[in-house]
């Protein structure tokens, strides 16, 4: 499912019949590093969620699910992730379509406009939004100095601020898979539809849109899953009502020193991420998702 490589048999023909070839060894140091420094921490954290305090069993999970606040924050997390995803789709689809429709040189510029933010610091961009949206920020001070308003508008520390910040940061993750899929759509199809008398709108709706749906699914999945784990942006731009589960996890560890509960919350978030991926993998080739960055750059 996630394999990026060629199918077995296409390479290393001489080793057919054995289960392993020489090239394979090259991957092992990397795998070892990831097992030790990445996978082991995650597995031990899962263990800690049922052994801290000793003999905890499932008590940490019970604590989580009987707490109104914890469950509500989990709901918040999904809610905010869902809205951000929709906003990204609404903004991202026309943009990707535009990239697809314009001459390659313009498309290249549009791509750069997506890629530069893709790689710029999330923290810097969140900070920029704070500077723009806060009561004494760019928008409010301009509007007040122009006499449009007398009291600052509430742009920050609410859902609006969080969604603005998160959508901007996540938008490239929507645009890139969409564009990757759209690029592969044969222009002859829409042309053929037009030749058969379909209006441009109908050609788009009946031909282009269905063909681009894998990109929609891939982008939506990617943005949603990434949004679930946001921590920095909602903490800076949101009010307590936009608290997301990552923040709660960090607070459990840093403020409460409650590793058991913190780990249990982390496991819950991880499971939900996997469930989202597993559900989506029925409709999306995950390779399209991961390949997005590669196609894009």
């Amino acid at each position: 499912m996630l394999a990026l490589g060629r199918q077995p048999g296409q390479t290393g023909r001489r080793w057919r019949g054995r289960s392993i070839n020489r090239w394979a060894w090259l991957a092992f140091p990397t795998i070892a590093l990831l097992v030790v420094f990445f996978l082991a921490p995650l597995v031990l954290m899962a263990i800690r969620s049922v052994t801290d305090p000793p003999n905890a069993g499932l008590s940490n999970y019970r604590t989580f699910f009987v707490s109104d606040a914890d469950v509500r924050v989990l709901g918040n997390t999904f809610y905010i992730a869902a809205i951000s995803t929709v906003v990204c789709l609404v903004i991202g689809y026309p943009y990707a379509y535009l990239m697809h429709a314009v001459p390659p040189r313009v498309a290249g510029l549009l791509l750069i406009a997506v890629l530069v933010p893709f790689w710029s610091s999330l923290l810097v961009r969140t900070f920029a939004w704070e500077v723009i949206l806060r009561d004494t920020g760019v928008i409010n001070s301009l509007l007040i100095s122009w006499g449009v308003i007398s009291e600052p508008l509430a742009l920050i520390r609410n859902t609006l601020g969080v969604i603005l910040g998160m959508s901007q940061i996540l938008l490239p993750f929507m645009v890139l898979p969409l564009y990757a899929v759209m690029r592969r759509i044969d222009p002859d199809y829409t042309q053929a539809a037009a030749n058969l008398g379909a209006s441009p709108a109908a050609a788009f709706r009946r031909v282009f849109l269905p063909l681009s749906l894998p990109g929609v699914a891939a982008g939506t999945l990617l943005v949603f899953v990434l949004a679930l784990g946001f921590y920095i942006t909602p903490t800076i731009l949101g009010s307590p009502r936009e608290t997301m589960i990552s923040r709660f996890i960090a607070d459990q560890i840093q403020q409460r020193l409650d590793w058991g509960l913190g780990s249990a919350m982390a496991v819950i978030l991880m499971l939900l991420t996997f469930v989202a991926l597993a559900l989506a993998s029925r409709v999306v080739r995950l390779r399209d998702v991961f390949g997005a960055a590669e196609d894009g750059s």
Partner: protein
Amino acid sequence: MRTWFRSIVPAVVISLLVGACSGGSGGASPAASAASAAPQASTPASSGAPASAGADVCTTPNAKSGTTLTFASYGGVYQKAQRQGWLDPYSKLTGVKFTESEDSANATIKAQVESGQVTWDVVDVGNDFGLDANKDVLEPLDFSLIKKDEILDGFVGPYRVADITYGVVLAYRTDKTNSQVPNGWADFFDLTKFPGKRGMYDYSAGGIFEVALMADGVAPKDLYPIDTARAIKKLDTIPKDQWVFWPGGAKSQELIDSGEVTMSLMWNGRAWSAKNLDSKPVAIQWNQQLLTADYLVVPKGTPNKDEAMKFIAWATCAQNNAAPSQFIPYGPTNKNSKPQPDKVPDLAVSNVNDTTAYFNDQYLVDNAKMLDDAYNGWKTK
């Protein structure tokens, strides 16, 4: 997908093995880790001679010159005051050197002790830390050196002794209250009389429940056990968009400096700084302040335990304890300590009256999860 999940099993096994090599399973209890750290306590530094009869812990501490102690506190002007008031004079007096960390955090103490890698010797912590609940990660204090009886009642325990006192107070912008003076927390909740946003410490044990209850008419001595339902009912009288929550002192100061909030729960030192250092129209209402303290603790397993105790004993002596208050209005904890007269009016301990309230730290720690849930349940609603 199916192969993917199926083959996760061997990977989990491998990482389990890795974990096993790292010394103990994921659930290693603090006690076990602390035990493994214990032998460190008998390193050469701690075998130094106990305070000899001739030495006075307050004037001629029997400290080992050349020792380096690591002092961790909260940074900024606060730690600078501690440096100028205590660390520098103590170094001059004894030859003990200090390195400093400015990121004191309970989680770090726990992490250091559990990893057996204790690098902090003396740590300034908040009132939510250092009780019996943390005895696995702290050294018991040496009360043959520390003058327990001279410390304000209730501000010393087996593992901690208060080093400075401060007030959790109501601070307000004098330019936004129509020359009326808010008399206490009831006025904090009166948006009709005093319109404007309210700043609040984003922490369930930071005073939010206590001030809500006082605003609702609960006497300071009757605050505990906290009636969270009643407190939340009072908190709900301020609409959510009128609250601004701050995660740390510097932010509270910025919020009141910029005028974004009209009133805020603040630490008195921060309100003082807004008024005196930033020259903003800010005043403190001392009525119904919550008087509390920061505490010094010694992480379990530090190789410099004995030297740490001598320093703590010295810093809490009557003649030394008030020294940082010259630089920041955080007051002494030693009953006999005399701050400079011109600083006295700004100190929380000087403004104690019959409306003053005190945190019940033991209650707050014992009920932390319940309070957290109530607080989070309210603020995320």
